[in-house]
């Protein structure tokens, strides 16, 4: 049996989820008695490929081509499908990142295989992989199996542990012939939002809601976030009001997040907001209304005025963390 994990990189640096996905593949491979391989695609990625050995890959396949410097949905799907086919892979793992979610379904369709999306847990029972995935933005979970011979899984970032690196891999180049037609959708440019941390990837999130009263008051949230190295999130109320960009929205129609710490400031905790963040490991709520529903999911709460508490919290964190 053979498992291949797609290891995402950008700018010749692996994303954290690459290590998570490879480690998860190794854990499952050990339980199935399968071989754990990883695949990296890019413009010039040979030098980083060996890192994946540390996370459990026995073999790393490298596909390099100057045209793959930027991501292309169609080209990446073709490459992964061809290698999976040539290697007679049984299982493919991808990150449920913007990239993985975009092209993994195309790989599934090419290989007539089933795909379980955005999984948050995996286990093996009687030789069968069973995946847990959130539905209704986390209001419920389903356990699923895949019936097709080849099985694809995308794994939610930040949920699987990458473990401590040790071990090494055999690295080998793979050739996949690519024509112009294989790049029928291709990235031409990346616009980075000022190096901003994304809520979908962050380990700590500080979110603000309508109780902050005006967009400029989010500076308080940004300062608290920066004292923790956290990403800034927002409720839909403030996104709809135009105070914050929609890529910060957390909730059922925003991003579903599961950081280790989620701090909700002046957010009431509407069911749509809770759906997107209630699987966070620890939740802190700061709200002046003691009956706000956010307290029903919070591990720790302070009932009080955000305008007093947030600056004090930032100051205290700076004091404690810089010690």
């Amino acid at each position, binding site marked *: 049996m053979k498992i291949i994990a797609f290891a995402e990189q950008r700018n010749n640096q692996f994303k954290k989820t690459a290590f998570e996905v490879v480690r998860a593949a190794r854990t499952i491979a050990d339980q199935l008695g399968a071989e754990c391989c990883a695949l990296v695609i890019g413009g010039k990625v040979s030098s980083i490929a060996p890192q994946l050995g540390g996370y459990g890959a026995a073999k790393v396949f490298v596909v390099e081509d100057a045209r793959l410097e930027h991501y292309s949905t169609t080209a990446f799907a073709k490459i992964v499908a061809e290698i999976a086919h040539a290697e007679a892979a049984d299982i493919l793992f991808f990150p449920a990142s913007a990239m993985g979610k975009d092209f993994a379904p195309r790989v599934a369709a090419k290989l007539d295989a089933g795909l379980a*999306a955005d999984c948050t847990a995996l286990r093996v029972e009687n030789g069968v992989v*069973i995946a847990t995935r959130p*539905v209704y933005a986390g209001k419920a979970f389903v356990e699923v199996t895949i019936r097709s011979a080849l099985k694809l899984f995308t794994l939610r970032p930040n949920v699987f542990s990458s473990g401590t690196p040790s071990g090494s891999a055999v690295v080998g180049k793979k050739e996949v012939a690519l024509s112009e037609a294989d790049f029928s959708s*291709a990235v*031409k440019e990346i*616009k980075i939002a000022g190096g901003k941390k994304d809520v979908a990837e962050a380990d*700590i999130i500080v979110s603000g809601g309508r109780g902050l009263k005006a967009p400029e008051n989010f500076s308080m949230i940004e300062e608290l976030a920066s004292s923790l190295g956290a990403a800034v999130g927002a409720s839909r109320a403030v996104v709809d009001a135009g105070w914050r960009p929609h890529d910060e929205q957390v909730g059922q129609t925003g991003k*579903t997040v599961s950081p280790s710490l989620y701090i909700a400031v002046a957010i009431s905790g509407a069911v749509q907001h809770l759906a997107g963040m209630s699987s966070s490991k*620890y939740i802190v709520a700061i709200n002046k209304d003691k009956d706000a529903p956010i307290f029903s999911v919070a591990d720790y709460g302070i009932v009080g005025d955000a305008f007093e508490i947030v600056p004090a919290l930032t100051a205290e964190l700076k004091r*404690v963390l810089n010690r």
Partner: protein
Amino acid sequence: MNILVFVNHVPDTETKVKVGADGKTIDPAGINYMLSPYDEFAVEEGLKLREKFTGEVTVASLGGDANKETLRKALAMGCNKAVLLKDASVRDSFAVARSLADFAKELSPDIILFGKQSIDYDNGQVGSLVAEILSMPSISVVVKLEINDGAIVAEREIEGGHEVVCSTLPAVVMAQKGLNQPRYPSLKGIMDAKRKVIEERAASFVESKVEVLSMRKPPAKNPGKIVGTDVSAVPELVRLLHEEAKVI
């Protein structure tokens, strides 16, 4: 321009999920359904493309009779034609996508619009699957779309930024919030939609590949601790996060 939009009919976002008697799906009692929010952006984008290029917007949904309500909403917004691909059984994304692709093939659209994901099973797969089955390029999580002479320049959301993607028609585009501001149906639109006939046809039969074994609610959280009611609670909160939760 021949524009096709696929829309899903899903439990509204207020829904408090209860697991049904089969232990695998939600209990439908008392649930209101709606046009899946991302699909509303897809419908709006279809209408905007028609305004720019002329042509027709066809909206289609696979599901039971109940999906007609969502199709009516799309008609009320201004779509020309609605088609119900009838099949009330539970399907995975793959089985949905195959049938949608079978239907799309007949229509040979210039563009097929989807939402970035249905807010029930949160799969985010159907659009990309249909694109692959039809050998069309696809762009997901789209927040900006420009089309000129058949050339597409789109922006899609990625972690911490946007990717500018180039492609050509015919293509599949999956809408994300931010792409546009969906219009409210006008009174006239609502009246017209009531009179329009929704074409019904049987969805082609396809077997699912992903099987749901069980559904459960997340474990209930223990009631949290109110650390205090003013700033004096701040040091204790930080101590708890540091020493008890160990998250900072």
